[in-house]
C-alpha cells in the first residue's frame, strides 16, 4: 500500500509540488479512509455517464495543477441536480486556469470538520482536528496531537473542541458517528507517520461527518519543498 502511495506522490512531485485532488483521494482510499464516490471526468460525455450511473445531486470541482484553493476561483459547484446544470458547470470549469477535467462526486450532508497533518520541525508528524469548512481560519477551533494517535487521544481531541456540542448532536440533530471519526483519525495519523519523509502537510477539509459516515470530501497534500 505504501509503495503504491509513494509512486503517486513521486509522480506529483515531478509535476507540481502538491497532489491534485483525484490523486490525493486515491491515496486516502488506498489507506482505508472513506472518500465520496467520484469520477475524474475530462469530457462532458464522461460527466454525463457518471451522473447517469450515480444519480443526482452531485458536486463538481475543477482539477487543475495551477489551482490550490478551488473555491476561491469558483472551482467548486455543489447541488447539481440536472444534466443541463452539469453541462453548464463543466463548460464554466473549462475556462479556469490549467483545466485538467473535473471531479464529480456524490453529495454528502454532515458537519464540516477539518482533519489535517503536518510534519513539524520540533515534533515530527502531528495531526489536527477542528471545525472545518471555508471559515476554519476564522474560528480557529482546532486541537493538535502528536501522531500517531490512539483512541483515547481522539476522544481528548474531540473533548477539547469548543464546538464539541455540535458533534454530540446539537438541538435535536443526531450525533455524528464518533467511531467512524476515531477510525479515520487513527488511520490518517498512521498514514502521515509513515509518510513523514514524503509530505509536508495535508488538509482534509471538509471531512463531512454525519450519524453514519465520516468522509474526506476534499483533500490537499503539500509536498516538501526539497522534493519539487
Amino acid at each position, binding site marked *: 500500500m505504501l509503495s503504491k502511495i509513494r509512486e503517486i506522490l513521486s509522480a506529483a512531485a515531478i509535476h507540481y509540488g*502538491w497532489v491534485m485532488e483525484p490523486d490525493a483521494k486515491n491515496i486516502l482510499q488506498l489507506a482505508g479512509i472513506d472518500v465520496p464516490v467520484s469520477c475524474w471526468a475530462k469530457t462532458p460525455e464522461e460527466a454525463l455517464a457518471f451522473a447517469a450511473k450515480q444519480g443526482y445531486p452531485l458536486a463538481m470541482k475543477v482539477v487543475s495543477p495551477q489551482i*490550490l484553493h478551488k473555491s476561491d476561483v469558483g472551482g467548486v459547484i455543489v447541488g447539481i441536480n440536472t444534466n443541463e446544470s452539469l453541462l453548464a458547470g463543466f463548460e464554466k470549469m473549462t475556462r479556469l486556469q490549467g483545466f485538467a477535467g473535473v471531479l464529480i462526486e456524490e453529495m454528502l450532508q454532515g458537519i464540516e470538520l*477539518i482533519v*489535517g*497533518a*503536518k510534519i*513539524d*520541525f*520540533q*515534533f*515530527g508528524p*502531528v495531526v*489536527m482536528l*477542528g471545525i472545518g469548512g471555508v471559515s*476554519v*481560519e476564522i474560528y*480557529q477551533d*482546532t*486541537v*493538535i*496531537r*502528536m501522531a500517531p494517535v490512539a483512541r483515547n*487521544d481522539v476522544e*481528548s481531541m474531540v*473533548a*477539547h473542541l469548543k464546538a464539541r456540542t455540535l458533534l454530540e448532536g446539537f438541538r435535536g440533530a443526531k450525533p455524528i458517528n464518533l467511531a467512524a471519526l476515531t477510525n479515520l483519525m487513527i488511520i490518517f495519523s498512521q498514514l502521515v507517520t509513515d509518510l513523514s519523509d514524503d509530505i*509536508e*502537510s*495535508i*488538509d482534509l*477539509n471538509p471531512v463531512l461527518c454525519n450519524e453514519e459516515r465520516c468522509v474526506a470530501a476534499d483533500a*490537499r497534500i*503539500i509536498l516538501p519543498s526539497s522534493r519539487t
Partner: protein
Amino acid sequence: MTVFPKEDSMNLQPLFAPKSLAVCGVSLTNDNHPANVIYNKNLLRFPVNVYPVNPRGGTIRGEKVYTAIDQIDSDVDLAVIVVRAEHVPEIIKQCIRKKVRGAVVISGGFAEAGRQDLQAQLVEIASRADFPFIGPNCLGIYAPSQVDTFFLPSERMVYPGKGKVAIISQSGGILVDLLVKFAGEGIGLSLAVSIGNKALVKEEQLLQFLAKDPTTSVIAFYIEGFGKNEGRKFVHAARKCKKPVIVMKAGKTTGGQRAVSSHTASLAGDYKVLSDIFAQYGIVEARNEQELLSFCESLSSYPNSSAKKIGIITGSGGHGAMAVDACLGHGLEVPLLPDAEQKSLRDSLSPSIRPIAATDNPIDLTGSAVEDDFAIATSALLDSSEVDCVLVLLLPYLPGISSDLSARISQLAQKTKKPLIAYVPHVERYRMLIEGFEFNKVPVSPSIEGAVLMVEALRRRSSC
C-alpha cells in the same frame, strides 16, 4: 561527517556534584574576569577543590596557576572553560586525555555567532569520548552547597534555599532572575542549569537525569526552541518521568514563518503545536513567570495530585467571589455541596455565625468566624467527596483568628491525600501565618489569582 552523540551513555552526575574543579582561562591581571569570579566563589564558598588554569602559569591569590589541565596532579571532575572560542576544542581534548568527567563551556562565539562549524567540532570531539559538556554560551551550573559556575559575584546573587525544584534554562539571564524570585517566594532549589546553545547536553538528557535524581521532585524548564525532532524526544522523556515537568516557552508569536499553503500549516503554528502536545503529554505549560513560580511551589508540595473540583473557604464574600471567578476562568469547577453536607457543616459552626454563614461553596464563614470554624470547614471539605482540592482564603485581620490557624489547618490536610492551598496577604506582620503553611508544605500565595494558579497547576499536571 555526522557523529551522533551518544547522550544516553554519558554520566552527568559528576557535573553537578564535583569534588574537584578546574577553571580554565583565569586572568592573572583582571580579577573581574569571568573565570576569576568563578574561581573565587568556588574557592571561598563551595566544598570543592579548585584549580586555576592559564597557559602562562604564575600564581593567583597565592595559589599556583597550572599551565594546562593535564599539569594538575589530582583527578579533576569538572572543567569550567572560559577561553576564546577557537581554543575550546583543544581544551576539551586535553580534558578527555586527563579523564576529566565533564565540562561547562561558558565561552560564547559558537553557533550563536555564526560558528556552527566550531560548535559541531566540539560535539564531535566530546561525543566520541562520551564526554558530557554543558553549553557553550551559557552560565552553567548552580548546585546548592556543591558548585556554582555562574560568573556573577556571590554578593550580587540571590540564592534560594535548598529544595526540590530543578530549573533548566536556555537563557542564563532568565535563570538568574528566577533564582531571585524563587528566593522571594520561598521556593527551594535542587539544581539550576543554564544550557546556552545546548550543543551536546540538551533538555531531554537533563530530564532523564533529573527523573532519577533523588534530590529533585519537580523539573522546570525555560525553553526558547527545540532542534529538529527534539520536541518529540523531550515529550517522550517527560511521559516516562514520574515527576511533574513544567515548561515556560518563549517565542509564542513567531514572526517570519514562511508562507504556508495549507490550512493545517497555517492553523498549526509552532506555539499551538507545542502547547497542545504538552497538554497531551501532561507537561505543565507555564504561560508566564507568575504561572511558573506558582506551579513550582504547588507541584513541589503535591507532585502527584490532580484537581478539578475545588472547595473554597473564605472569611469574606468578595474573596470567595474573586476565587470562584478565577477558578471558572481556568476551567476548574466549584461544585455546590449536597444539602446533607451543608446542614451538618452548619450545625457544627459557632452559634454566632450559624445563621449568617454560606455553606454551599464557597463556604463563607464571614468576618465573625473563629478559628474552630475554619478548622471545621476545612475538615468538612477535606472529607467531602464533592471536591478534590481545598482552597482556603485566610484573612489575618479577622478578630477571631490567631497566627496558629495556618499550622492547625495544614495539619488537618496532611492527614488526608487531598491538596490544600492557601491565600494570605504577604506582609511582614502576617509572617507567622504564612510560615505556618510553608513549614507544613502547604503552598501559600500572596494573591487570590496566584492561589488559583497553584490549583490550576494540579489540573494541568494530568495529561488529557
